């Protein structure tokens, strides 16, 4: 959804330096601050509720962060996945209010589907998140993205927000949100509709321009949240429904006259219910209970009647998952120490008529024992995590290969240290091992099943150097983060001795060395505020799978050596202007780092102008109604580029939005 919503927004205005303490304490400010201090701060954090113009899609918030590569297939409905520090998107956990959005089928979470509406913060942990009462799954993700909603603040007891966005690609995107307080309870109900033809022009090799077709999408989201505070305990409930129907425009390839690139369509229906209850019982003992049920249905059809070149596929998938988590946290009388025990249980099932119609199921136990120490300028956290997964399947028709039910497990330790020797200097370091399970696709679908597959392992180490300065109207901050990762036993598809069948084997190895740098500055005087952020990421991700192969020592696909972003914002009274440039260096689509597979560097620049109009406060109300208008000019230099080879991105496009809150 980045095209429809690549809105330049005031990232810096709301990020860590200015809001450091506020961001640290987040949702549970009432619990002792010392126990809540994170050992390692989020690598990147944006407080959306205070931003002036926020991108519609979470992917657009993430894509400018250091260490992050968003893989974007282009268009309003195109798949968007996130890769952090070259670990592979399967190692990145996406958490909504502490509960993971999982996909046992392929372990890819489409970030284009997550709206920033109603979210409080978006944060990224390149290393280890270590906070009180977090779930076991939050400990064992390689890197993690956290989307947190915030309890609405309602001085008048209620609030309405209506917004209309629209622009290029025939995009119409209305949404509304209703917040209501009722005693100790608060409700938030929101709904959103999106329709777009997704059409844009792109250069077809050197043969002129073509229109991207079969790229339309229609989607609707409705959700309701309940927030309650009972005797110092916090209760949350979230019901979520999402439906979409979209076309896959397909890769741009040479096509015979009159043959379309693609007529593939996909329809989705996602339903979920999740909730949590956090309770501090006596200052020394606190618990958190979490649960989730998710039901995701997908229908995929290649429509050979419209595209005679398509292989005829008409497939249906239904994934279900049930998740429960119980976390205990102890703080002894010597309150510098905290101990957490987190135990999660999850069941996944996939039904489909694809392949040989196996119906795989998985039961996972995830446990973590964690300790945190906060002692003056020094903090430390350590945990040991355990993952055990039982897989079994039932076959709806006979024949084919034998697959065995399998059990896989792994231990995952981590250590993080933090030291702030001076008020303006912070140092931290971490080392961590994590694993990701093979997906159902790895095990059962795309290939010959391999019940011997082991989990894929990731070793991560990193150091952070954090400098801060403030003087008069000026503030400045610098973060430098060198790191080294190794992905081992990487699950790789390889052709079997029967070349038309593939299997998955744990044979990949990748060594990753990198450096992230972020510099931020602000200047405020009178009505004026000026903000700037520069980000730079260097990543050398080297294939070390097979010393005898011709590609040994080469950069792995789709990882640029250099990437970065420039953000600049100017605020004056009710006006704001922002500028965002994202730069990605050259990279290769294959491990063969030859000219044939080189993908050219690209950059896009988005600018936005926004104005807030505040009306007179009505009698008996404490908050003034507000109208916010924003104009977003995306890819203003009309650069044609591809992030994924064969999937062109749109050139210049414009979006406008009007939001009214009362």
């Amino acid at each position, binding site marked *: 959804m980045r095209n429809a919503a690549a809105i330049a927004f005031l990232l810096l205005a709301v990020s860590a330096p200015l809001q450091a303490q506020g961001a640290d304490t987040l949702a549970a400010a009432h619990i002792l601050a010392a126990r809540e201090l994170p050992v390692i701060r989020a690598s990147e954090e944006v407080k959306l509720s205070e931003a002036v113009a926020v991108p519609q899609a979470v992917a657009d918030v993430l894509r400018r962060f250091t260490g992050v590569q968003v893989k974007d297939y282009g268009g309003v409905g195109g798949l968007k996945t996130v890769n952090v520090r070259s670990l592979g998107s399967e190692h990145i956990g996406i958490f909504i209010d502490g509960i993971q959005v999982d996909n046992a089928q392929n372990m890819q979470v489409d970030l284009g589907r997550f709206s920033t509406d109603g979210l409080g913060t978006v944060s990224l942990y390149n290393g280890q998140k270590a906070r009180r009462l977090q779930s076991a799954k939050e400990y064992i993700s390689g890197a993690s993205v956290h989307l947190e909603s915030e309890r609405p603040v309602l001085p008048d007891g209620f609030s309405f927000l209506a917004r209309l966005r629209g622009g290029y690609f025939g995009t119409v995107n209305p949404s509304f949100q209703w917040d209501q307080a009722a005693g100790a309870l608060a409700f938030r109900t929101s709904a959103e509709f999106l329709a777009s033809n997704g059409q844009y022009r792109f250069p077809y090799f050197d043969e002129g321009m073509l229109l991207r077709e079969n790229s339309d999408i229609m989607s609707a989201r409705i959700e309701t949240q309940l927030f309650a505070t009972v005797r110092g305990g916090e209760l949350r409930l979230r019901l979520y429904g999402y439906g979409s129907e979209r076309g896959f425009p397909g890769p741009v390839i*040479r096509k015979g006259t009159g043959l379309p690139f693609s007529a593939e369509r996909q329809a989705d229906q996602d339903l979920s219910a999740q909730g949590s209850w956090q309770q501090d019982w006596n200052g020394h003992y606190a618990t958190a209970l979490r649960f989730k049920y998710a039901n995701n249905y997908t229908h995929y059809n290649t429509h050979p009647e419209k595209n005679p070149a398509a292989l005829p596929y008409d497939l249906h998938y239904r994934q279900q998952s049930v998740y429960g988590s119980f976390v205990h946290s102890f703080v002894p009388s010597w309150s510098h120490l905290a101990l957490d025990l987190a135990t999660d249980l999850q069941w996944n099932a996939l039904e489909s008529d694809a392949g040989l119609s196996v119906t795989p199921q998985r039961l996972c136990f995830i446990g973590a024992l964690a300790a945190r120490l906060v002692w003056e300028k020094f903090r430390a956290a350590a945990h040991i995590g355990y993952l055990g997964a039982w897989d079994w399947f039932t076959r709806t028709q006979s024949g084919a290969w034998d697959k065995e039910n399998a059990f896989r497990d792994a231990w995952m330790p981590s250590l993080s240290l933090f030291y702030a020797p001076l008020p303006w200097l912070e140092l931290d370091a971490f080392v961590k091992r994590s694993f990701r399970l093979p997906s159902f696709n790895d095990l059962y679908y795309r290939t010959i099943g391999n019940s011997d597959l082991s989990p894929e392992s990731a070793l991560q180490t990193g150091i952070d150097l954090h400098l801060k300065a403030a003087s008069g109207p000026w503030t400045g901050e610098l973060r430098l983060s060198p790191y080294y990762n190794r992905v081992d036993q990487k699950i790789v598809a390889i052709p079997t001795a029967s070349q038309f069948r593939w299997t998955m084997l744990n044979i990949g190895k990748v060594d990753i060395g990198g450096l992230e740098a972020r510099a931020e500055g602000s200047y405020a005087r009178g009505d004026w505020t000026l903000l700037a952020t520069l980000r730079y990421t260097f990543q050398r991700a080297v294939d070390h799978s097979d010393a005898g192969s011709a590609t040994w020592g080469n950069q792995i696909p789709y990882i640029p050596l250099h990437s970065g972003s420039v953000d600049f914002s100017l605020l004056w009274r009710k006006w704001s202007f922002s500028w965002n440039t994202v730069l990605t260096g050259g990279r290769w689509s294959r491990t063969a780092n030859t000219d044939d597979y080189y993908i050219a560097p690209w950059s896009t620049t988005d600018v936005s102008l926004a104005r807030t109009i505040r009306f007179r406060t009505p009698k008996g109300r404490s908050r003034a109604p507000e109208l916010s208008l924003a104009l977003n000019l995306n890819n203003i230099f009309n650069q044609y580029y591809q992030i994924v080879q064969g999937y062109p991105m749109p050139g210049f496009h414009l979006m406008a939005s009007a939001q009214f809150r009362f």
Partner: protein
Amino acid sequence: MLCGALAFTACDIYPVEPVVQPSKDADLDGQKVDVTGLGTDAKKIFVLNEGGMGANNATLDFLRMSDGTYVTGAFKKMNPDVGAGLGDVGNDIAVRGNEVWIVVNNSGIVEVLSAKDETEIAVITIPTPRNIAFDDNYAYVSSWAGAYAEYNSDYSIKDYSNPKGRVYRINLKTKTLDSKTVEVGYQPEGLALRNGKLYVANSGGIASSLPPSYAYDNSVSIINTASLSLEKTLEVQVNLKNVWFDGSSDLYVSSLGDYYSTHSGIYRIDAQETVTHIGDYVSVAAMFDGTLYCIGNAQEFDFYTTERTWKGWKCKGGAVSEWPVSIGSGTPYGLTVLSSDACLIGDAGDYFNPGTVSLYRQGSKRWSVNAGVCPGHFALW
């Protein structure tokens, strides 16, 4: 086997071509290899690299025999105007007279090039074309997209379980598609002509993973080319792949097997259309001088190892004999036999990155050159 028709076709198509003129591709340079004493009178050996599905990276290489130069990416170099390149998934290549015919599966085209300089002569659109064979007047192309299932008014499929394939034919002179086509089995692959009949191997490769049958096709469709109609369907074995005519009487058909209980193998269809099982284990095979040369792996059901033990064997007149060839741990993906002691083998490597083409003499490797992704098909000119 096309030598007889070569001279005739050449002057038929190029009536005013000057006799002596340096080929436009003479400047193309590449890797130098030793081509002396290979026992073939071919001027060029074309190599079609399939590329990856959706990656639009099918490429055409050739080995120029006059100076032992292996040229990569020749299509793009000689046809810079075709910005999209050769296309997506090159599935078959054949030389007919002074023309190279290339079947580009996912692009839905048959590309006709000059064998002399790889410049484009014609492009014919056929949905999901697979393989190609010729008689004196037509090129026959198998296609997975033939008869469709029935549809509801909202374009949803009422019944998609019957996606039978079709054979299209192209007039060799006009390079245009004949309006008449013929339905064959599920997902047809290789095809060959024998005495006015076209034999089409049906795989059922897609049908095998679709409800309700989940079954491979196991038939060869026999087509009368005079009337372009289906004459007979012959049961052979599941998942058929290629068909070769030995030039005198026998046809050979390869099966990929079902990957768990039926091994890949070769079946003979004799002049009386009797089917006999010849031998097992065929990953790649090529016909030369009436002999079918095969390379297969006896451990083909051991899917969980990267170790492979390849074994060569050959067959003439239904009689099987050893054909020693030491492949090592490679992944042979294409084969062409040049003489009784020389062959070229395309190695697909990891199927994702560019592979290699190697010369084998007396069963051992003499040299290797870097090719494109999945070098799988050869044609001699």
